[in-house]
């Protein structure tokens, strides 16, 4: 991408006015790391939104609000009971990029290797969009597929992301496979389990990187709901349910290897989630 000019608004309304007047050539930049992946010959005017007041993590009773401009390293450093986004932040590229990349940027432009869309789909929280058309959207609606994502976020500025606090009887786990420590993800898997009366009340599984857009595995989830909270149930998972998905293996992986990797990681994250829900870790 070629930046032919830039503006640095300090108010949200100002940023929207710039975007409106610039039309197609406008390009929001917060950390700016995703700009690297935009078509090299595209000429854009950068709207540097990094000075807008959209920072910080606020703890609420049952949830956390994360300002869209909060950097990944600030998320990584946040330690509080029930806050689990830091687990994914620790595996995010490298320190130099964690220090400038923002969570808003990571979810506003979704690449297939993106980390946080996988996590947020699994946690199923909310996103607040700023501006005149301010609205609160469910993450499951926004990240349903690339079309719903584009329609929901498009050229809007995200104000914050709200994720539920992990409570007792709940567990979450996240796995990211890379070929080198700071490489792009080859397969990202996240899972969430909630128990009630020693049975699985709710379970969510999301896979990224091996698909063009992160996907929840609803059929697989449904097959586990109501099952006893016992590790042996994961040996009975019907992985044939994955056959209907179109895998997109990367980094030289064969389709067979890619599917095997995903199956293994699904089991791993489910075991870890159940351990946490049972209070074993």
């Amino acid at each position, binding site marked *: 991408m070629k*930046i*032919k000019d*830039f503006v640095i608004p300090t108010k949200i309304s100002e940023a929207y006015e710039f975007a409106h007047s610039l039309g197609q050539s406008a390009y929001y930049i917060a950390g700016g790391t995703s700009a*690297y992946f935009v078509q090299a010959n595209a000429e854009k005017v950068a709207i540097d939104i990094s000075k807008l007041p959209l920072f910080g993590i606020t703890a609420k009773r049952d949830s956390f609000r994360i300002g869209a401009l909060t950097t990944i390293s600030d998320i990584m450093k946040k330690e509080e009971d029930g806050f689990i986004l830091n687990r994914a932040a620790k595996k995010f*590229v490298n320190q*130099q990029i964690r220090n*400038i990349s923002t969570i808003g940027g990571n979810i506003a432009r979704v690449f297939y290797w993106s980390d946080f869309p996988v996590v947020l789909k699994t946690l199923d929280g909310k996103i607040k969009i700023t501006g005149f058309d301010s609205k609160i959207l469910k993450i499951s609606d926004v990240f349903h597929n690339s079309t719903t994502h584009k329609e929901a976020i498009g050229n809007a500025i995200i104000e914050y992301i709200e994720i539920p606090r992990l409570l007792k009887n709940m567990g979450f786990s996240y796995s990211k496979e890379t070929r080198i420590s700071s490489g792009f993800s080859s397969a990202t898997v996240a899972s969430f389990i909630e128990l009630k009366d020693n049975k699985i009340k709710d379970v969510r599984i999301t896979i990224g990187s091996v698909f063009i857009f992160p996907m929840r595995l609803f059929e697989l989830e449904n097959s586990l709901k109501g099952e006893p909270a016992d590790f042996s149930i994961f040996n009975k998972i019907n992985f044939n349910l994955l056959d209907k998905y179109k895998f997109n293996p990367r980094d030289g992986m064969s389709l067979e290897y890619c599917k095997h990797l995903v199956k293994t990681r699904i089991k791993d994250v489910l075991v870890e989630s159940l351990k946490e829900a049972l209070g074993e870790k």
Partner: protein
Amino acid sequence: MVKKKISFRLNGELREFEIEPNEKLLELLRRIGYKGVKYGCLEGMCGSCTVIMNGKAIASCLLYAFQADGKEITTIEGVSAGFADGCNLPNEIQDEFIKEHALQCGYCTPGFIMSAKAMFDENPIPDDETIKIYTDGNRCRCTGYEKIWSALKNLSEKHKEKLRR
């Protein structure tokens, strides 16, 4: 292309720069003579171009120069322990690198020093895991990493000793 003016504090001194909108911070710094900031992969993966912005290590190859407007930037040229006999004196991190032989060709060294400086400024006694996290964006193709990590662990131990006394 329109040239624009920005200003930021560079190694403690407030300065104004005329830049092209598309110019990266790395390009600007080298253009004005700060050659300790190295070209590497140009995609934020190798750490050779690491500088400190507002206390945090960042990849200057990914950042547009205008994103530094109003910020505080420190390069390897700005972290010496003083000046004597026409030379910059090594700081405590550089001293440990020398003692541990933690460099060979030296190309990655400024980047490692800057990542380590940001880490020690924030946490003078980092544990092994913290050292690995804070330097996970720096690549060394000569020495490997053991000697570099040893140097940083030694300094952490020294800081711990100092605090005990």
